[in-house]
């Protein structure tokens, strides 16, 4: 139930981002909701639950990203794997550490996309565009990571009140 709710809310957030960018007339900026979702699922779910939830969101993420097929998706998957590694050592409540992780994850996402493009489309101008947009990409995720994560945490808390008590591991 919690995972289904995350899929629905995640999809709604992605659609709102796409529509909001149009209403505000912004094309150079993005809030990188897809990366924040991958970080959230990576740090707040176990590998199987988080992975399956992300898999359900990957296709709509790819459609809304509108880039050359697979590159954005590959970066988002990589972010999930790294977030799972960071999961054990990050605070339980969504906060500054997660925002920082989301910013680092965005840099990783760009790196994965760039390496894949260098291997598969080496003469593309998209690499230059990515280099130019990197600052705004990091800024976008820094601004949006906290509210998006907080909203998803609220949804989790509403469906599973025990999930927001933080992970206090002893021994």
């Amino acid at each position, binding site marked *: 139930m919690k995972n289904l709710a995350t899929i629905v809310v995640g999809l709604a957030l992605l659609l709102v981002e796409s529509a909001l960018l149009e209403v505000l007339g912004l094309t150079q900026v993005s809030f990188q909701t897809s990366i924040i979702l991958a970080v959230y699922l990576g740090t707040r779910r176990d590998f199987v639950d988080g992975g399956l939830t992300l898999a359900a969101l990957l296709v709509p993420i790819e459609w809304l990203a509108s880039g050359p097929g*697979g590159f954005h998706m590959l970066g988002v998957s990589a972010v999930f794997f790294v977030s799972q590694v960071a999961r054990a050592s990050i605070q339980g409540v969504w906060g500054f550490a997660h925002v920082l992780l989301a910013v680092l994850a965005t840099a990783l996402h760009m790196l994965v996309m760039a390496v894949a493009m260098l291997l598969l489309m080496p003469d*593309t101008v998209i690499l230059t565009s990515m280099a130019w947009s990197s600052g705004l990409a990091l800024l976008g995720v820094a601004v949006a990571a906290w509210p998006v994560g907080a909203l998803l945490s609220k949804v989790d808390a509403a469906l599973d009140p025990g999930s927001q008590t933080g992970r206090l591991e002893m021994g």
Partner: protein
Amino acid sequence: MLDLLEKHRRKLVALLLVLMPVAALGLRDEPGIGTEESPVVVEWTRGGTYATLAATHTSLAWIGEIWNSIAAGGSADEIERLEKEVARLQEEKSRLIGVLQENSRLRELVGFKQQHPEYELVPARVIGRDITPYFRVLKLRLKSSVKLEPRMPVVVADGVVGQIHEVQGHYADVIIVSDPRSRIDAVNQRNRASGIVQGLGHERDYLARIAYLSQKDEVRKGDVMVTGGMDRVFPKELIIGRVAEVARAKRGLFQEVKLEPSVDFSRLDEVFVITGAE
């Protein structure tokens, strides 16, 4: 079988997350604009996603209008009746301004239609944008049932917007002039010097560059570049933009020229798709 799946579920999920992007990379179309037609299931699912996007866009625009009218009417606080009256008039004024703006946009579009009676134009509404900062893609909802094809030109009264990339029923993705994947054959309106307008995906503005413009051709800042028609995508003589910067390269055969598109992509509501010409 279930035991096996249960035992290896972590590995299977990891494989799924790796295989999905790898499959998408393997199935991707050739670099450039225009994609193969999707299977019906994909078209329906994606069409459904875009229909929800259109509804989200309409709701957000409506919330924006309400917010504007509240912000405009929040100052009066002396007499309740006058407050209500002022708020009502301001809301009406805000609505009228919206109607006038839409009227003006539509008049421009009708003007464009009258200037180019030879083109078959299909109106469409912009409902969203791509969710990454690396690409420049608009999402459109068609206002008619005409079947679109990839690579069809998209224009407004000010000039060229871009080309259709993917079509899903009544919805389409448009790669705009400044997307790094965009390539448009162009000529200088003043001296017919030809080149290719390539998007740059620049961070601050919508600048593009004009590639393959010979060192021998004289190009000045402010020159208007129009479509050349050699790419067989765009009809001839549609305005793409003005030359913003000219730098003669120290080496090589071509000049380094930057172009500022004539269309303000941040303020697009309605566009036209050119579906054919007489």
